[in-house]
């Protein structure tokens, strides 16, 4: 495990079936905290609860790719609002640890608590990402090498990993 601590995990650490609490993200929004500008907002219908599995790769549903512009790297604080539903059991100590990497360097680790969630509830929570200070050289490298900035998002309930999402990022977005 220690060999992977310096970079994004190449694979998922749990299967989609480990999400026994049926946590389902239905809405996501990010905004610049300094201006309040909403940068991105997305929603999706709740996943059917009849146990149907996706026809495509099960990991495909837990990966996203963003194409940001260089201006995004100038932001200092971004608020991320997530809306999610949970299954019919109460959830104690719901927590997310998210780690952002550029190549084999950890940029920053974030640790957010969602707390307790009532059974069969829809919940909304906003967390504030305080961006790490990046050198001009680092920003240049991140722009020059799209999708080599990556993240792992680990979700825990009572300290047990139940979900693992991944993303990668480009900062060379333009017209």
């Amino acid at each position, binding site marked *: 495990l*220690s060999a992977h601590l*310096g970079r994004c995990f*190449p*694979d*998922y*650490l*749990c*299967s989609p079936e*480990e999400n026994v609490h049926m946590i389902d993200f239905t809405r996501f*929004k990010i905004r*610049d905290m*300094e*201006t*309040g500008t909403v*940068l*991105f*907002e*997305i*929603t*999706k219908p709740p996943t059917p609860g009849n146990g149907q599995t996706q026809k495509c*790769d099960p*990991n*495909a*549903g837990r*990966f996203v*790719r*963003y*194409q*940001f*512009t*260089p201006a995004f790297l100038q932001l200092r604080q971004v608020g991320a609002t997530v809306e999610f539903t949970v299954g019919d059991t109460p959830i104690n100590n719901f927590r997310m*640890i998210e780690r952002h990497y550029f190549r084999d360097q950890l940029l*920053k*680790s974030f*640790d957010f608590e969602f707390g307790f969630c*009532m059974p*069969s*509830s*829809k*919940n*909304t929570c906003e967390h504030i990402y*305080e961006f*790490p200070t990046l050198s*001009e050289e680092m*920003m240049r490298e991140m*722009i*020059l090498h*799209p*999708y080599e900035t990556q993240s792992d998002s680990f979700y825990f309930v009572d*300290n*047990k*990993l*139940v979900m693992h999402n*991944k993303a990668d990022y*480009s*900062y*060379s*977005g*333009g*017209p």
Partner: protein
Amino acid sequence: MEMEISGVSRTHVSILPAADIKATLKPEAERPRCASTPCSPIRGTVAGYQILHMDSNYLVGFTTGEELLKLAHKWSEGNPEKVHVSEPVSSSIKSTVPKSVDLGIHRSSRIFKAKGRYYQPYDIPAASGRRRRRMPSSSDTFLRSLAHSESGRGLHAPLPLCLLKGKGAQSKSLDYLNLDKISIKESSDTEVLQYQLQHLTLRGERVFTRNKT
């Protein structure tokens, strides 16, 4: 009974029937631009997701793993003579997707170009008439030029390794992963210690101390 956390009953959110979900971005009619709406909202659907807003000053593309795999499959079945590799693969990841393939990033630029829109992605817009606190540095122009030259290359990225691997994984516990204690736990393992020392300067991280013997 299904309840929201605030006590309001959960209502079914009807987005789009699965049969109507297209892989391509379907923009809504744009509102006329004016000083109060410098960025027309980007709306569309991506693999079941509905994009409600995308500020093109900061974000010009979003896609999902499903979309990437669909396009990779589509292009791998396409005419191979028409596909070429525009640059060498820089990683050891094997991918069946040619580097020159557009990997499904739904970009606002497709809409904006069609509309002949004036587009300035790199300026940080002022809000409420006040300037942002951070003044642009002398290197900002250089960073913009880098982005301009690299924007096309950004679409030609290989599939991420996590989508190419299909094996299952066993769930772990937080204690086993030790993710929340990495910065403070003392360890005699040299590799772990080096990693911890390397990240002492991360903002907000606790300072790691080690008693030298």
